[in-house]
């Protein structure tokens, strides 16, 4: 029996888990995937929004601004790459200039600091590759870029170190209030019983909410296609460049990533399929056309990968966070679409506070609030690196040549708390396979390391859990192959 079961190990669920781990409570996180960060958190713009976009007085606005404020400290404590590169909303039609003022006013009311409206000349001086049509821009110095994988992984790792359990490959099939007053969650891996359930299930949050409440909610997966460009294109712009927002969202942005690539996206296409993360030719085409409206000479030939993610868009376009009225002990964290990543630290804080008060939780005496990321040898001097290799020769063996990732980093990713079990797990923790060859050279080598370290047969090694196996069988002349 648990005090709290959290459904979903994305950035919301993991943030809540980490905040809850401050208190004396038995907490367990369930996720149907094989790892943390397998849903919406793994495929988004990786932006920490300033907070001028969300409607005044909304929970979205409040948690966005609060999350943004918390980001420096949490990224420092958890050793997560984060940079306040500043963002710009670019206006390319003279008649739309008043829209910038509206955004500015809304931002001021939302509590966003440092906002400034730029003239065409000021905007071009700060960002020379803006479109020739630029008429002006709204500049938000508090806008930032973060590694969403690392933020999610770090929160989960830290929660785990502080006693939160994680159960992967565990899909919740049914939720019922038992006669004992507890929540009974039926899963493919047995039953979980909890006093409180937190529903942080992303695009599936409506499904779980609707299992327990008569007041139905409805989430539309809103697909966003993205193109990621080579690091050679990483300085094409230095700020995050937005168009002016529309009813469908913040539009196609162009931004450097915190790792030095350039990211272009997303589209906004409402679909039915909650697993529909396929890109389409139209989507990518549309993206490229729109991106060029605001930024000129985009080197789209330097695309190294394209992908799509799903935003959990609730019909009311607002975060739904709190105890469900007709289902006491069931706490929603639903409708977490953009700016969900930016708001995640504040979402964790809000939900944990709510549960702390509901259960009168006391603080742990020995809570560990910090976590060290996998060592990045690139930050070391030649002498320091030599010292490191002498101590642990695995740091001298480069596995991923594009991103220069050593065996030492991969071993760390596998053996740390909630360690990597899949190729994608290694990739998101270390960046091995994220470079320009997209794992062409390193995947057989990473497979060899996973095989050796975890004792997994090659045929059982997956890209990202489930059926995503890399190889099927041995060749004819090998032991175990068909003769």
């Amino acid at each position, binding site marked *: 029996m648990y005090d709290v079961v959290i459904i979903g190990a994305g950035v919301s669920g993991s943030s809540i888990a980490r905040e809850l781990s401050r208190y004396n409570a038995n907490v367990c996180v369930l996720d149907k995937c094989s790892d943390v960060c397998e849903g919406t958190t793994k495929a988004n713009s990786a932006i920490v929004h300033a907070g001028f976009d969300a409607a005044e007085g909304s929970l979205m606005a409040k948690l966005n601004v609060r999350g943004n404020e918390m980001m420096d400290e949490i990224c420092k404590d958890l050793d997560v790459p984060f940079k306040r590169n500043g963002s710009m909303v670019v206006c390319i039609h003279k008649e739309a200039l008043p829209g910038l003022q509206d955004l500015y006013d809304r931002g001021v009311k939302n509590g966003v600091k440092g906002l400034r409206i730029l003239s065409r000349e000021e905007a071009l001086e700060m960002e020379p590759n803006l479109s020739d049509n630029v008429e002006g821009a709204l500049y938000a110095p508090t806008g930032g870029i973060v590694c969403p994988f690392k933020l999610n992984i770090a929160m989960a790792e830290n929660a785990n170190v502080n006693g939160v359990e994680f159960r992967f490959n565990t899909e919740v099939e049914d939720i019922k209030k038992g006669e004992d007053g507890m929540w009974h969650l039926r899963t493919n891996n047995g039953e979980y019983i909890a006093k409180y359930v937190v529903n942080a299930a992303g695009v599936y949050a409506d499904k779980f909410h609707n299992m327990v409440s008569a007041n139905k909610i409805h989430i539309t997966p809103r697909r966003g296609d993205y*193109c*990621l460009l080579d690091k050679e294109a990483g300085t094409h712009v230095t700020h995050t460049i937005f168009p002016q927002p529309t009813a469908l969202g913040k539009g196609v942005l162009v931004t450097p990533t915190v790792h030095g690539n350039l990211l272009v996206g997303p589209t906004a296409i409402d679909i039915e399929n909650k*697993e529909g*993360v*396929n*890109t*389409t*030719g139209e*989507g*990518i085409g549309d993206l490229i056309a729109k991106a060029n409206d605001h930024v000129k000479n985009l080197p789209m030939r330097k*695309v*190294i*990968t*394209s*992908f799509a993610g799903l935003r959990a868009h609730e019909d009311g376009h607002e975060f739904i966070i709190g105890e469900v009225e007709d289902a006491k002990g069931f706490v929603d964290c639903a409708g977490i679409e953009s700016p969900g990543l930016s708001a995640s630290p504040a979402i964790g804080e809000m939900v944990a506070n709510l549960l702390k008060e509901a259960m009168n939780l006391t603080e742990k005496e020995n809570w560990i609030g910090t976590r060290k990321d996998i060592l990045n040898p690139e930050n070391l001097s*030649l002498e320091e*690196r*030599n010292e490191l*290799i*002498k101590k642990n*020769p*695995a740091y*001298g*063996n*480069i596995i991923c*040549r*594009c991103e*220069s990732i050593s065996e030492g980093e991969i071993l760390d990713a596998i053996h740390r708390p909630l360690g990597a079990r899949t190729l994608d797990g290694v990739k998101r923790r270390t960046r091995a396979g994220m470079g*320009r*060859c*997209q*794992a*062409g*050279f390193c*995947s*057989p080598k990473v*497979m*060899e390391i996973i095989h050796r370290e975890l004792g997994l047969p*090659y*045929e059982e090694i*997956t*890209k*990202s*859990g*489930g*059926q*995503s*196996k*890399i*190889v*099927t*069988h*041995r*060749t*004819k*002349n*090998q032991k175990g*192959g*068909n003769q």
Partner: protein
Amino acid sequence: MLNYDIVIVGGGPAGLAAAVAARNAGVDKILILERDKELGGILNQCIHNGFGLHTFKEELTGPEYAYRFIEKVLDAKIEYKLNTMVMDISEDRVVTAMSREDGMYQIKAGAVILAMGCRERPRGALNIPGYRPAGIFSAGTAQRLVNIEGYMPGREVVILGSGDIGLIMARRMTLEGAKVKVVAELMPYSGGLKRNIVQCLDDFGIPLKLSHTVVDIEGKEHLEAVTIAQVDNHGKPIPGTEERYTCDTLLLSCGLIPENELSRNAGVEMSPITSGPIVNESLETNIPGVFACGNVLHVHDLVDYVSEEADRAGQNAAKFIKGELADNGGEEIEIVATEGARYTVPSTIDLGRMDDKLTVRFRVGAVYKDSYVSVYFDDERVMHNKKRIMAPGEMEQVILLKSKLEEKPGLKKITVKIEAE
């Protein structure tokens, strides 16, 4: 800091041949740095035959071909380091390398020979729409899994791109019991050698669909099917021509890209056409004493030509460190590729440094039948050779004689082009 006369980055066919040539030219301190656990490079996973017809007048497998050169390196006691990654090359030829055993260290090189080879264009760079499941491999990655690791990626295969590795893998997967359903090629011609189309597809009844591409990939966790469609003259899919193939494996053989991250960081000037360094007649880059050869310079289809090119790079690097490659004051003659010829290697000639004979290699941009390879010295046509067929997948060459160039004092420009008559 260590000191070597010549440091060779890469122990594949190019690096090995360059090392042997430099040693034969009398260079003492040569060091080959190889990132893999053995010498031979990508040849080690190319277990099919067909290598060495030009060099050795016999048909060898990739590992056999490599071993001919490895043997020479061993016999000549040329130093090499395995499992060693070169992290940086500086403009003044300081090479920073790293390995488990030696840690991170620097070497001052009299000359550097770039021989890092190339990599495959990944799925992401092709903008193929659809899901991103397991089961999609570049052909060379699959080749490594099958031939080195001994594992099959799947049982039902579709191949996109008709590059040579894709064609070779079509046959290899078939021999291992997989069903290769189709090879789709975006262009109206194959990217591979004619002999590979015949021996790897035709002989096994595998259809090659030219002007076709993949327009959808199905399967969230593992590949389940792909849809291919015909494309128009602009490479755009034609609606109504879609065909769906169930499969668990998609191999990509859509082009090779020279691996020049180190060269670029060192300040080596690149050709936007080959994605390799721009070199002169000595295969020397814009940085004096830094030479390039093999697939890092431009992608070859036959290893024999790699070895030949690397041999020249090795000899020239030897001359450089002995001070015999100094600028003789000769004016540089520019070589221009135009009208069907996409590029040439080399791009310039210093007559004072030129050997008696110089092979200029190039590729054509389309299929040409019964056409002429023409060479102009300034405006005068000096060569006009009829070829029955020329295709982008097969490298072409012309041989320039120093004596002929010397007959034209003041020659500024040599032009290579394809002419209909």
